[in-house]
């Protein structure tokens, strides 16, 4: 139990797959974006896991500390978190526009409305 081995990666992959499952099965567009957020956060955890050293400390330099965890994944994930929120914002505003145009944000209902509109022309 002292070492987690690969369990951390496997649990994170399970989380990622739940997010993925929400994205592909849910016809509701907001739920899809929520699933995407879960997927994203899990990928962040995966990256930070790789940077951890057992017995290490946060990468803030001090004379009393000899071992630091790897700062590089931290920097990459900081960028990724902010970019993730930017894409979420664009996705959600697209949902708002779709809802304004169709009166629904369920994918299959939108398809039905589109099919009905195509018939007369």
């Amino acid at each position, binding site marked *: 139990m002292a070492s987690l081995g690969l369990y951390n990666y496997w649990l994170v992959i399970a989380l990622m797959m*739940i997010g993925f499952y929400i994205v592909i099965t849910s016809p509701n567009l*907001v739920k899809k974006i929520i699933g995407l957020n879960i997927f994203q956060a899990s990928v962040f955890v995966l990256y*930070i896991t790789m940077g951890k050293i057992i*017995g290490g400390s946060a990468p*803030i330099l001090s004379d009393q500390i000899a071992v630091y965890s790897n700062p590089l994944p931290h920097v990459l994930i900081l960028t990724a978190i902010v970019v993730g929120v930017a894409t979420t914002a664009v996705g959600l505003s697209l949902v*708002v526009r779709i809802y304004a145009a169709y009166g629904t944000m369920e994918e299959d209902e939108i398809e039905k409305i589109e099919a009905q509109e195509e018939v007369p022309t």
Partner: protein
Amino acid sequence: MIEALIDEAILGLMLVIAIGVLYWRNLFAAAMLTSIYSLLAAALFVVMDAVDVAFTEAAVGAGISIILTLGTLALTCGEQKPRPVFVLGPFLLVLLTGAVLIYGTLDMPDYGDALAPIHSHVAPRYLEESRGEVGPPNVVTSVLASYRGYDTLGETVVIFTAGIGVFALLGHGRRRGKVVAKEEV
């Protein structure tokens, strides 16, 4: 030892919450659960020594993205149509993807291994030289602002583009609404 237990406990809670999001049909509840999920991820980042990331995740992931989701729900509707949660085809696809990913982790170094290849290159140089070359004691700050400053510039460009995108999508409809209102008068 205790760290490992905390780590596993938090990941277990995250698993429970993710399944909750999958089953809950009320979108407000699902959005709140996502926020809790981000907060737990932030706690996990503290356990794994990524304090800066934990800060950002708690503020941006658990804070701003939930506000955006709630704003969207206020403009649309908060309930999802009832649908079966279990669908065989996607479930098999997800299972297959997960299996391939787990196969990919099999030759990865153990959790917290100090001899892992990721720790042998680039990062030691940042840890040793950043104090003299850049200055601040926080290595993450040095890398973010100096060594990988272009990354951060690119990030800012992405946010700016996203801002323009949101403005183009949402600002347009409001303006047209005003014009229509004027014509009616």
